[in-house]
Every structure is written in C-alpha cells, then in structure tokens.
C-alpha cells in the first residue's frame, strides 16, 4: 500500500513542464518513450520515498573542505 502514489500524476504534462524548466527540447517522436521511462522510474521510486527515516540519518554524500 505504501508502494504507490496516493494520487495519479499526469506524466505527459509533468514531462512537458519539466522539459520547459530544464530547457530540454524533446522531439515528438521520442516523447512517448520519455514518458514511459518517467512512469517506470516513478514506480521504482515509491519504495524509497515511502520509507520513513529518522531525522538523524544524514545524506551519504560527504564533502571535505
């Protein structure tokens, strides 16, 4: 139950908006493939983003000044 988005997302519209924000020009002929891949990765992401982590767990990315 925690593995799915609670509300459906219009992924074609999402891709259009993100492409605009990122200044990407996506040719029409490959848009369906991009939308399909966004849908795929949204599904993959659910077990990650739904997993509760304690506030004390920091990002694994480190930086040495």
């Amino acid at each position: 139950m925690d593995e799915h988005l609670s509300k459906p997302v219009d992924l074609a519209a999402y891709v259009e908006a993100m492409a605009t924000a990122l200044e990407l020009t996506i040719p029409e002929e490959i848009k369906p493939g991009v939308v399909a891949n966004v849908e795929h990765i949204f599904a993959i992401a659910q077990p990650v983003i739904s997993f509760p982590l304690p506030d004390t767990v920091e990002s694994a990315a480190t930086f040495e000044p």
Partner: protein
Amino acid sequence: MSEFQNAIAQAAAIKAGKPSASALLEATLADIAARNPALNCFTAVTAERARSQAQAIDNAIAAGQDPGPLAGVPFAVKNLFDIQGLTTIAGAKLNQGNPAAAQNATVITRLQQAGAVLVGALNMDEYAYGFVTINAHFGTTPNPHDPTRMAGGSSGGSAAAVAAGLVPFALGSDTNGSIRVPASLCGVYGLKPTYGRLSRAGAFLFSSSLDHVGPMARSLPLLAAVYDAMQGPDPADPVCTQRPPAPVTPALTQGTGGLRIAQLGGHFERGMEPLVRDVLTEVLQSLAVSDRVEFPETHRARAAAYIITACEGSQLHLERLRQHPMAFDPATRDRFLAGAMLPAAWYVQAQRLRRWYRDRVREIFQHYDVLIAPTTPCVAPPLNQTTLEIDGETYPLRPHLGFYTQPLSFIGLPVLSVPSHRPGNLPVGIQLIAAPYQEAKLFRVAARLESVGG
C-alpha cells in the same frame, strides 16, 4: 589461449628474456587483428605506443633492471579510461569530437609502472548505462562462448576480451554491476573493490556516488597482482581513500581458517535459474557454509541505487541532452531524459537511505567475514531476449541482470565475482562479498574455491 593461463609465470619468463616483451606483444597484436572483427571487443588498438613500451621493457631487462611484477603482460581498458593521445569515447558518438586525453588514467599509469603493456580500448554500453554491451554506435560485443548470446555490460568488451584470450586482463568500471555482470556471463574473475579503494581519476564517470573501477582476469593470481599494482592514494580523485595499499597477493596462500562465511539470503536467493542455484549450492557446500543472513529492505536499496544513478547520470549529460538528444544511443537516451526530471527530494532520500542501509549491513559484518550470493540470476541470454522467466515469474531482462549486484555496489562493499565453468553449460558467476577494505578475505575464499575446482 594457453600462453596466458598463467600470466604471472609469463611475466617471470619475460624477465628471463624468453620470450621478449616485444615478441609477446606482436603475437598479441596479431591475434587481436585476426579475431577482433568477429569478437568486436576493441574500439581502438594502441599498437605503436605498446611497441614502444614493450621495447623499453626489453631494454630494461637487457640493462639488468627490474621491469616490474607485470613485465610485458598485455592488457586493455574499457573505453571510458583516458589513454594519453586518444579521445575518451565512453561508448558515445557524442564524445568522438572531444580533444584527446592529455594523460593516462591513474590506474593505467600504475599498471604501466608495474610493467604491463596497454594494447587498446574496449567496447561498452553508451556512457556505461546498460548491462548488455549492445551499442548503437560501436556495435554489439557478443559472448565469446556463444556469439548469439550477450556478453553482459557495461564492461562487456573487457570481459569478452579476457574470456576470449585476446588479453590476460582488462579494466572495467562498475556502478551497479558493470564489472560483475559481464564477468559472470563471460566466465572470468571480476573485482569491484571497496568504493574509493582505487583511483577513478581519468575515468569518464557515470554516477560519481556509485562509480568504481576494477580488474577482470581469467587467472586469480594475476587478478591479485593487477589489483595490488593499482592501489594507493590519489589526490586527483576526491573519493580515493588515503589508506595505504593493502596487498591481496599474500592472501592467496593463507587459507580460509577462521573466516566466518554465510550465504546472503532474502533478496539474494530469489529469482535465479536452476543452474545458478545448483552452482550456488555447490559453492556453499564446498565451503561447508550453513549460516544464512539477510540484509534488510534490500528492494528499497536497489531502487535507491537506481534513483541516484538516474539523477547523477542525467545531470552529467544534461547539456548534451539539451543540444543533441538524437545523437544518444536510443537505449540510453529516454532513460537519461527521464532521469533529469526527478524531484530533488527523491534523490536526497535515496542518499539518506544509502547511509541507513550501510549502517544495518555494517552490523551484520560484525558477525561474518564473507557473504556469498549469485552474481547474475541467469547464464548469458540470447542477444534478442527481453524477458526472463524464472519460477513462473516474468522479469524484464536487462534490469534484472543487476538484481544481485546493484544493492551491494550501492553501499560500496568489495565484491569478487568468481566464475564457475560446468562442462556443457555456459559460465555463471558467484559473488564473494566482504566488509569495506577487506578484499584480502575475498581472495582467500576465491583461492580456496579454485583449489577445490569450484
């Protein structure tokens, strides 16, 4: 192939002048010229610089100098490593217009200092984003054991060149399994060391948080010697450890006494072909392993690795995606474009999950030294196969090839994929997994398996 079966002995013979490094090199170059058109491993052969280096080794020997532990041993590298004077293509047509590399990747320099002779660059999936080495620009590298089947990827040219005997060892890179998957499908040893153990300076990265470099070989002592020659700090790679080298060659004769070994269960014992299960069982029996442990939430770990890879890889290529989307390999293009569009919160959550998962796994390594799991769920699939049927379940083939490798590189554990060759069957690999910086324990177990014919 037989002349390379023991490349360490070969190096010793070269030091004795029989054959000369130059003579061995000419035989290697002739073999590559004859067989590479069918094998499609090499995208560049560096004959002239190799001839200069081999001659320098022969001159050093004649002058009574020690040319190094890898004297005259030929090798090649995945074409994402910088080779001085060549453009680093990283499997991409888009990179072909880049200037030539000004210097060698650090690991190439270290291998040359040890006497090894670089003979060329090897095919890969575009920008390392794949497990198959089916490249729209540079062609498919087929599996040398059966050219109708996949070599695996993304370091497929490296694994296939070693398996075919074109070179005794090669270098690859591994973000989610790209050394171990092709090593398994081609039947060679493949080492993904601890994250940060080997310098990545001069390697064209894919996803810096997860990128490793490492060697592949048919001979375990050679793999150890090559790995030992490459270790050491490197200020040119911000991820490279400051720890002093920890040579693994002495471990080959230390035996497995005192090592606590267990099978890695849960996620790592699901979804494999019967042959892979048989090989795994045989390995566990030969090591008298009876314990089984599980890493928690491994499906989430694997998914988090996917998100980090997609975000970092897509960001790295964002300008190229803006300017030339149709110049990408169709196999990577749509995934890179999609990966550029993920919410930042997801990426950070994935990086936090990485630390959480690492901490849980660290606790398990308080009780065990080496864990064992398959490398791939299947033997090399046919080149046109798209799904995998196992135990009544259908999996999409390409991502499933990384099912057992991806959660381990996610937290940078050292892993050695050991080949199993059963007569009449295609090869398959078994992963030996240790705590960070404990590569020597992997070599102790691998030497034990080699001695019992595992």
